[in-house]
């Protein structure tokens, strides 16, 4: 993968391995993602793309190898999880938006409660992000295909260094 310092990696995996029971899902994954770089992960269904991405913000634990996100080594401790999750945004395969909250609350929840940003700043930023996915809060009924649009916006909210 080359010299870490020189390439300024935001995500770095070295020899990552993960099993579900006896099912060896991630086998010796070694990859690096530089700042500003975009990466597309391709593979058949069930090949472990989601699992790999879920490892990056600690939703799944890995069993062997090393995973570094920004300056933090994800070693399963609460402290490392908290730091990484406040910096990594994620859009879920099936979105998992919070149905009991408004679109705006969906976007500001993490900023306000996990990162302690002042609410007005979080709202401002949420409006910018909604602008980018062409959704206005004037649309009172968010339905059908529009439902998924806040999802990338929420995923982006942490001012992501890495987009999953």
């Amino acid at each position, binding site marked *: 993968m080359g010299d870490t310092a020189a390439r300024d990696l935001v995500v770095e995996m070295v020899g990552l391995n993960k099993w579900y029971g006896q099912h060896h899902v991630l086998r010796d994954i070694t990859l690096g993602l530089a700042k500003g770089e975009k990466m597309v992960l391709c593979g058949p269904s069930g090949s472990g793309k989601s699992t790999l991405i879920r490892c990056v913000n600690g939703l799944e634990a890995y069993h062997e190898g090393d995973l570094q996100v920004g300056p933090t080594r994800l070693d399963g401790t609460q402290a490392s999880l908290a730091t990484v*999750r406040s910096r990594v945004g994620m859009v*879920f395969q099936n979105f*998992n938006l919070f*149905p*009991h909250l408004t679109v705006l609350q969906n976007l500001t929840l993490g900023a306000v409660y996990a990162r302690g940003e002042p609410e007005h700043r979080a709202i401002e930023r949420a409006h910018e992000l909604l602008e980018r996915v062409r959704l206005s809060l004037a649309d009172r009924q*968010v339905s059908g295909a529009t439902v998924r649009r806040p999802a990338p916006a929420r995923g982006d909210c942490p001012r992501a260094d890495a987009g999953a």
Partner: protein
Amino acid sequence: MSGPASFALPTHSPARASRIEVRGPLAFARSHLFPTRTTGIATLILGAMVAVALWHILRWSIIDAVWYSPDGSAACRTAMGACWAVIAEKYRVILFGTYPYDQQWRGVAIVAVWLGWGVVSATNWLAVGTRLAGWTIVYVGSIVLLAGGVLGLEPIGTDLWGGLPLTFVIFGGTVAGGLPLAVLLAIGRRSQLPVVRLLCVATIEGVRGIPLLALLFFAALILPLFLPPELSVDKLIRAEIGMIVFFAAYAAEVVRGGLQAIPEGQDEAAQALGLGYWLRMRKIVLPQALAIVVPALFNDIIRAFKNTTFFSILGLFDVLGATKAALQDPEWVRYGTEGYLFVFLLYFLICSAMSRYGASIEQDNQSRLRRAV
């Protein structure tokens, strides 16, 4: 290249009258009461029986009833119908128990505030937090008012508390103490920590395994025999703790059902945002889980209201206990039917009102859930 016919633009058809049968009392009677000859005859026979029964009830309860009997129960003894005079005579004992007569205005105030706030908080005029805060104030205020000893109010011991205010206070304490405990037990039962999980399972299963009456007897009558005198706690409080634990054990399983109904992705999404365990519970999981289980919770809440009648067996004068005491008056002892009918009606009205309360919260939740996804 012409487009397929099936995709032709819709043209406007003229409106036609519906062929579905017109609604209305006549149409209903024809289709539901007299659809065939046999059903028609059955309707007539059953209708006649209902009419006779209703006539008897009407005659007993209204036409031949005695509403007012100035000199003892004399007027009732000769009458054919119900003796509602017993209510007129005893309503203060039934509604306020042994609470000192000249202080019963406090009880009136408490009942009025409960009913008033019940109506206001059943609507969605106020935010949920405001409604709950209001109930807390109402509850604490009721206890202060009953107990006295502040603001120049004469102090009155719990052994004299009684009637509807006591029933309300027992019930309010059960729900206010039991719901949070239920949530904790439900969360604990799903915990990763084996000790916590075991403790919660043992509490839930243990309490669910004993009858409420046995639990109350133990708390009110047997427990003090084992406790050193300096640890003595008021009988009312001991029984109340029994009620709270009993309520919580049942409601915990209801809440757990709600927690299980929330897709795991919700908690994961909140984790991905970096929220800690208790924040995820408070902001994401519990609001959705509790909204789902409102109907089942109101089942338990209404039952808790009716379970307050168990206190009458412990020698406390809740509405039922006070009624029992009031009807022991030899002058009126023959009119227990009327007295208990009045109490049934009272419980029925309050419990139906609570059903409506639950339904309105459900509607409120639904309109909120529809907002986002």
